């Protein structure tokens, strides 16, 4: 299918997609699908589920694009991300058993120094986040990437604020540990 020229502006693209212009819709998809896939897969580790959620997210995007208001460059991208995150959370709440692992179960060294991120590929960090247990992963994503407070996370996931805080603390420790281990095991990366 033909697509719009690469440099078409966000507001024009959204306007055309709103009018059910198939070319504009395909262009919008092509432009943002990889970005939205990254977001969605940071929350969900199963590839089939990622595809299903993305499919629903795009359908939602196309059916509610008339609700989008252009507020300058980048606003479409962040609106798309918001719709996708909402759709992802909806899926997690509906299907995921967010087992908030009791804190004693795992034995991880908690070190005070911060891990170094410079010599580690982004895709590797992405995968490490995906390897976290669903509960840790969801809270970590909401806190770090969506910049939600523990109060907001508690209300989104219907958990206690203290649970959110303790789970995040744990998630950070596990991730930092993974990063350090990665760096020890692959000295060439340094």
């Amino acid at each position, binding site marked *: 299918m033909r697509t719009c020229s690469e440099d078409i502006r966000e507001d024009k693209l959204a306007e055309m997609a709103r009018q059910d212009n198939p070319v504009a819709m*395909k262009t919008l998809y092509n432009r943002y699908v*990889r970005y939205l*896939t990254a977001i969605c897969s940071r929350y969900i580790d199963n590839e089939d589920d990622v*595809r299903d959620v993305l499919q629903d997210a795009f359908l939602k995007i196309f*059916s509610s694009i008339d609700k989008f208001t252009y507020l300058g460059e980048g606003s479409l991208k962040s609106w798309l991300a918001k719709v996708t995150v909402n759709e992802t959370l909806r899926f997690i709440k509906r299907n995921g058993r967010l087992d908030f692992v009791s804190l004693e179960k795992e034995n991880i060294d908690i070190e005070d120094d911060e891990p170094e991120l410079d010599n580690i590929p982004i*895709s590797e*960090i992405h995968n490490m986040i995906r390897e976290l247990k669903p509960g840790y992963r969801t809270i970590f994503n909401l806190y770090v990437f969506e910049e939600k407070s523990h109060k907001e996370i508690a209300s989104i996931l219907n958990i206690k604020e203290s649970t959110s805080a303790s789970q995040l603390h744990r998630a*950070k420790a596990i991730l930092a540990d993974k990063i350090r281990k990665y760096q020890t095991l692959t000295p060439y990366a340094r």
Partner: protein
Amino acid sequence: MKDNWLKDLQGKLADYEREAPDMLWENIEKQLQSPRHKRNAHVWTWRKYVAAAILLLLICSSYFLISQTDIDMSVDNHLANIGTSNIDIKELSKPVATHEGSKGVVMEQHNQPRYKNHAITDRTIAGVSHIAENADTISKVSDQTDSPITPTEIESTEKKDIPQKRTTYKSDMNVYNHIAQSNMHNNEKSRFSMGIYTSGSPDHSSAMTSQTAMASSLGADNANWEDDPKLGIMLFNKGKATKHNVKHHLPVRTGISFAYELNDRLSIESGLTYTNLTSDFKEGTDNNYINNRQSLHYIGIPVSVRYNIFSWKLIDIYGAAGVHAEQCVKGQQKTDYIIEQKTDVSETYSIDEKPFQFSVNASAGVQLNATSLIGIYAEPGVSYHFKDNSTLQTIYSDKPFNFNLNIGIRFTFGK
């Protein structure tokens, strides 16, 4: 642990991209072309209209139920008061039989609910405006009721009756209140009541007069009519217009239902129901009558198809249509012979006829999902009951086309 590295991490991953899953666009395209998605905006609008209509219907029906409670209760008050004043007058006319009089009062008060029901039926037929008038007069009547009792001309023994009277009346009211609260169906009964008046039909009254003439030789008012209560009733109703009154109580139905979701809109549903149909057939005058209470118990299986019109958060709004097959498993008839509003003789026997009832129904409902498995629903609907080829007279045979409001719990499986 400081969180600077998290800021760093957020920055690094902010614009990270990954390859899209295979076949994603193809699937999206397919969905976009499906009629459901194309008409999305349009469908949304009619769904919203339907949802609004159903909500309105629900609000109206619940308002109706609540307002019915009020009307019933005020009529009760009114009647109870009238009842008390009637007794006073009677006692004044028979000052000698003080002891028996007080006993009579208690009995009479016990019979009050029946009397109430009867009067409600009449009044409902007469019109709702009438009830409003009654409600207005309550305060006046209740003011008046105390005054005829207080005069000093009444003997001291009778004064003792007054508190007794009050307590009986009170406890009766409490019982009634309790029933009204625990069983909302009672409040709706007047909607389903039906009255047939046969005042002064020639052969009927002539039969009565002849009986009365024969019985008049027996004389005394206080005679024991246990041996032939029918005769007593006819005697006491001498010269009065009698009426035949049929009152069907609202069918009381409880059940359990299971739904299986075929897709996210359509589900098929079945279950098991128990229905109790009670009807009162009353013959005579207000004070002296024969009351036949017919009580039929049905076990049924409903099958219906449900279409989900609108979902919002935990709430589903849907339309449903289906069939309901019910088999009568037990039937009973209780005959009360009431003389001067006092149950003289009571007989109970079982009904041998066990009819099979088939009905079709359509309804609209709203369901609140407690979990994905269990939900509470309320659905107003209409149903049509086919002839059951039995000789029994029920609410379904008299009024095959009926409105109803079902409230219950639903278990949903599938998907």
